[in-house]
């Protein structure tokens, strides 16, 4: 198996340029962030922050400073509202299960949308096995949640509503503020959680303005290291742990704090918010250059998600008809362009991306979808290279389909 991987890698030798656009699934960590983290592995603050010695106290100080940076950019009232977890998946698991535990006896209904990430969707499915009723709100053709259906869904029994602020696959900027107002109007006791991993650092997002109870953010989605994220828990909101063990500085997540990763997360956050407007404008320009370029150069393509200001500034998701996505990702990789697809091809279930199916895309449209996210580190030259590679790759894969009818 490892030999095969080595051969696959060898097939990439001699690439003239490489452009990584798969930020949805993992990201390259910028040098500034790596440099900020390095001293915390072995030079300082390598102790356990709950212990009574210098390296421990240094770690405590460092974690508090990191919390403060994130709390500021998120708009928190207190540092304690930031709870570090090992990532978005864990923060979403904590939000849903922790609420289900803490609201025991107060209701059995949980409302989410059809296009939530799997770390919400699958946890909801899990809770449904333990007596909770899960209601999934549908979305329209661009991925906007149906607010009327939301109003109907929330009742006295509803303990939690979880809706993403920005959809992770198609970049739809959801009306979470309106959604939250509807939810609280129907039931002031319902906890409102938003997975803001694709909003934080990309669109203006402030937990106090929104008045959310819980919000998830992720480090790698803002180009920090993987393995760290956070759950914002508004002061006064009860939340139970879902894992038990030694509790340190993080009251909702046991185990020894990973100080270097937390430092990297805070640094990535600082960089995302330094020149925020400029960063966002740059991403938007690159995003539109990519979208317009593909639509202009390649026939039979379809943009998934909304256009313009209602789309996250980094998100590009396009379906190439008569073109299977897995084959396309490999062809693109061999040419130095790294993306992912909503194709079912790596699953035996034969069902493609649930988000694309929920916005009404046909299976063949979902199988041919490619997801790309631009960052402030990409250049116009990177995008132009992608625009040179993608049409050729699509043409070659469509050539293999040949005269077959694909509907």
């Amino acid at each position, binding site marked *: *198996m*490892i030999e*095969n*991987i080595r*051969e*696959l890698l060898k*097939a990439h030798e001699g690439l003239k340029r490489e452009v990584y656009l798969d930020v949805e699934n993992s990201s390259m960590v910028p040098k500034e962030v790596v440099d900020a983290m390095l001293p915390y592995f072995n030079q300082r603050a390598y102790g356990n922050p709950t212990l009574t010695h210098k390296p421990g106290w240094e770690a405590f100080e460092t974690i508090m400073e990191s919390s403060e940076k994130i709390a500021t950019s998120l708009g928190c009232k207190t540092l304690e509202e930031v709870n570090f977890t090992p990532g978005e998946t864990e923060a979403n698991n904590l939000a849903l299960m922790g609420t289900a535990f803490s609201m025991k006896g107060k209701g059995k209904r949980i409302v989410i949308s059809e296009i939530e990430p*799997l770390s919400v969707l699958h946890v909801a499915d899990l809770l449904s096995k333990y007596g909770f009723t899960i209601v999934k709100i549908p979305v329209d053709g661009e991925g906007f949640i149906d607010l009327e259906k939301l109003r109907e869904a929330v009742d006295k029994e509803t303990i939690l509503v979880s809706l993403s602020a920005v959809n992770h696959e198609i970049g739809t900027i959801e009306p979470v503020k309106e959604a939250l107002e509807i939810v609280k109007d129907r039931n002031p006791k319902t906890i409102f959680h938003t997975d803001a991993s694709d909003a934080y650092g990309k669109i203006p997002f402030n937990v106090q303005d929104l008045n959310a109870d819980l919000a998830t953010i992720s480090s790698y989605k803002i180009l920090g290291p993987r393995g760290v994220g956070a759950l914002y828990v508004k002061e006064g909101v009860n939340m139970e742990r879902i894992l038990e063990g030694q509790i340190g500085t993080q009251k909702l997540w046991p185990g020894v704090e990973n100080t270097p990763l937390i430092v990297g997360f805070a640094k990535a956050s600082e960089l995302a918010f330094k020149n925020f407007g400029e960063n966002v404008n740059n991403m938007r320009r690159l995003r539109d250059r990519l979208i317009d370029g593909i639509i202009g150069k390649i026939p039979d393509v379809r943009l998934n998600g909304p256009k313009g200001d209602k789309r996250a500034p980094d998100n590009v998701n396009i379906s190439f008809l*008569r073109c*299977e*996505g*897995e*084959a396309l990702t*490999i062809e693109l990789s*061999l040419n130095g362009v790294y993306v992912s697809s*909503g*194709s*079912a*091809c*790596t*699953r*035996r279930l*034969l*069902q*493609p*991306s*649930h988000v694309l*199916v929920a916005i*009404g895309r*046909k*299976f*063949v449209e979902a*199988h041919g979808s490619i997801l790309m996210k631009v960052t402030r580190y990409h250049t116009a030259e990177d995008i132009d290279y992608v625009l040179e590679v993608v049409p050729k790759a699509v043409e070659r894969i469509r*050539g*293999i*389909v*040949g*005269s*077959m009818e*694909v*509907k």
Partner: protein
Amino acid sequence: MSRAPLPYNPKILELFRNPKNLGRMEDATVTAVAGNPSCGDMIIFYLKINDEDVIEKASFESYGCAANIATSSIVTEMVKGMKLEDAWKISWKSVIDAVGGLPSVKFHCGILAVGALKRAIRAYYKNRRLSPGWLPKEHTFEEKQALEEEELAEMLSKRMKMEEEK
């Protein structure tokens, strides 16, 4: 979306990059399709068969992943010059061996390719109203699997339509 790592081997990569016997064959004696684009998996075989029931030429087109392309391509290589009776004996396992192995989540690609080949052979004899003794009346494993995948696609698209109408 759940994902399995896909360490495709060099043979598959080569067949993906430079597929052999790719393309529509205008003078094909018989063609057969298997799979369904809704499953992201469909192939067509074109066979040119001579009077001695020997496959003179074979080609394919494919809508699918790299494994689908590679297994289809290798089947067209394997059957070239074969008598139909011998081509019928090709199993999905031998196809997977011929491409140097596949990750288990991709076994269905080899199965689908053999399913399409068997359909083509059946169609050839059906068109000629012949039924050689070696050709079983019952569907083989590969043909059943192809049917199952197509029925699943049908079911899923029906379910989607119903949900749209709701």
